């Protein structure tokens, strides 16, 4: 193997080894609960891919996780840890909803893009303050984005309870979005064509997510500013020497990161729920950390890892019907283990696999 092939093998094997380990430990947890991990695994695969409707739900979740993963990955490439994607998506939901409720009469061809932009802008804005504080005041972005998640929770629950809730409504939720602001669902489109499909929430945001992944790849790996961002992420001093302002890169990376997190609001609010619900992100922003780490910060890796987590969440939901002892919290355990193995212990796995590859290389040379 030449060094390039070895690097590729490493890029594939390290995530596979970490996820394998995470599954192994999760399997032990299932055993401790008193269920059979092999049956659980089979049910989860059938539950996520076993029918068109199940695949639809899987891809619906995948959409959220691609957006969340891209948000974390872009910041990660700039050397930042954005732990606030969840809060940014939550506030983006406000942007989407305000725009949709402000201009209900607009043609959907105008209103849908406007709502998407409003979501992206609100998400970016919520990321801008921690970014600015990091770039100009040196505040640690991990702590500030954690604080901004909680600030988002408090702000949104205040707005939903006191401002956005229609009169007489008991639930803390906004009014329904006008039909013109809804992201078209795939199953509706198929039904309009006369096909008999089970409705699923999979909607246009999925295509938007794939386009975003491609766009992020193009930007990070094929443009001058994307290169500058990655240089600043690896070595701030080298970047400064090359005339790249690390501070500007921090702000640019976080703006893009927050805007991408806003994609989750497009998928959930415009695509599925049709109104702003309390805690609608359900912690999916944190899944982005696992997705970005597994995908090693690369958009293609993020898309694949997003699909894996989409399968896990949909499979986990179906699983809870068949095996009541194993709730969807199981996925949270797997997610934590993936982050632990792929993120915190990455060096351990990488060193072992590198040694393994080198050993095989040396063996091949000897024969």
């Amino acid at each position, binding site marked *: 193997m030449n060094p390039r092939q070895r690097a590729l093998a490493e890029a594939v094997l390290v995530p596979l080894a970490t996820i394998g380990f995470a599954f192994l430990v999760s399997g032990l*947890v299932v055993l*401790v*609960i*008193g269920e059979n991990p092999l049956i659980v695994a089979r049910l989860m695969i059938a539950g996520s891919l076993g029918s068109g409707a199940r695949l639809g739900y899987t891809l619906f979740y995948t959409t959220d996780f691609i957006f969340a993963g891209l948000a974390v990955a872009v910041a990660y490439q700039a050397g930042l*840890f954005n*732990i606030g994607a969840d809060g940014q998506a939550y506030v983006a939901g406000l942007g989407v909803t305000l725009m949709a409720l402000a201009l209900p009469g607009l043609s959907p061809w105008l209103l849908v893009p406007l709502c998407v932009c409003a979501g992206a802008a609100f998400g970016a804005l919520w990321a801008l*303050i921690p970014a600015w*504080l990091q770039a100009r*005041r*040196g*505040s*640690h972005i*991990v*702590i*500030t984005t*954690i*604080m*901004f998640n*909680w*600030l988002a929770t*408090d*702000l949104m*629950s*205040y707005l939903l309870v*006191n401002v956005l809730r229609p009169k007489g409504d008991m639930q803390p939720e906004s009014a329904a979005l006008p039909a013109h602001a809804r992201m078209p669902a795939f199953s509706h489109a198929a039904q309009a064509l006369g096909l008999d499909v089970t409705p699923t929430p999979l909607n246009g945001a999925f295509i938007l997510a794939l386009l975003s992944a491609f766009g992020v790849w193009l930007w990070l790996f094929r443009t001058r500013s994307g290169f500058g961002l990655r240089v600043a992420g690896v070595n701030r001093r080298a970047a400064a020497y090359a005339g790249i302002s690390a501070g500007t890169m921090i702000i640019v990376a976080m703006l893009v990161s927050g805007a991408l997190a806003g994609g989750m609001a497009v998928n959930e609010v415009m695509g599925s729920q049709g109104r702003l619900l309390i805690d609608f992100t359900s912690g999916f922003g*944190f899944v982005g*950390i*696992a997705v970005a*780490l597994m995908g090693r910060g690369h958009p293609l890796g993020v898309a694949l890892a997003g699909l894996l987590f989409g399968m896990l969440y949909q499979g986990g939901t179906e699983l809870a019907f068949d095996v009541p*002892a*194993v*709730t969807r*919290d*199981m*996925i*949270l*355990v*797997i*997610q*934590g*283990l*993936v*982050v*632990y193995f792929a*993120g*915190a*212990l*990455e*060096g*351990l796995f990488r060193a072992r696999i590198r040694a393994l590859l080198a050993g095989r290389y040396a063996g091949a040379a000897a024969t």
Partner: protein
Amino acid sequence: MNSALITSGLSAALDYTTPLLCACLAGLWSERAGIVDIALEGKLLVAAFAAAAAASASGNAFVGLAAGIVASLALAFAHGYAAIDRNGNQIVSGAALNMAASGLTALVGNAWYHHGGRTPPLAGAARFRGLHLPGSAALAHVPWIGPLYAQVISGHALPVYAALALVPVTAYVLKSTRFGLRLRAVGENPAAADNAGISVRAMRYAGVALCGLYCGLGGTYLSVAANAGFLRDMTAGTGFIALAALVFAKWRPWPALATCFVFGLLNAIADRLQGLVLPGIGKVPVQAVQALPYLATVILLSGFIGAAIAPRASGVPYIKARA
């Protein structure tokens, strides 16, 4: 405002302060040794679950406390292994452990008890009850001091007093003992400490272990004293407010107590503020009061009012030599 409202508010503030203070001092030990820990929340959660489960099985609150500490320590050592032995990213490890803790407690709780992750209600000796401090009845009629002693200071569960006692203990050990000096040295300049013959690894593990111990007490308090059992995600951000308090206290024990008490007081005020109208301000939204600790921390971190400087080597793995 009448005095009964004030004493009940202060008493409730003390209850809110307890888990915050435990987690804040826990984070202090870890970060002063150079290990950033954003998994205080996860440790509180596993401790709360293990304590409630053990207390309900044994009928003894102290068995619960022991189990809570063991569970919290297990998580602490998982963090220590990644951060100290494997030079892993400490933020990533902390985020991972928070997720795993939230998932594991809900999953196992549901599988064992079939009540949506809730443990069976604790009663009698399985719970830490309020203690009446000696002399509280005798002093009750003395103006000022009497009500303060009888209704605010007396009547709390054992972990509340244990947490308060941790403040002088932590301050003394950290500032005035050889162990504390070495631990701080490792958090500020591990290379210098290493040159002086101090084991960076051992000191950092000690910090991480103390962090687990304190979080064990805080988590146990939540499920075995403040509540009669474990509820899904019952920590509800306590570990993150503790992190904010730690920044606010600039990583020092006595200011940690002051900050945690103020944050606890804010909680107690938020509880009593529902629907209250203040003259000149109007109706105060509860969320605004709840958001104050987070907002204050962001402002402090921004460096506009004083600086919050973390232990210099915190978050940085110590690599003794190139392999």
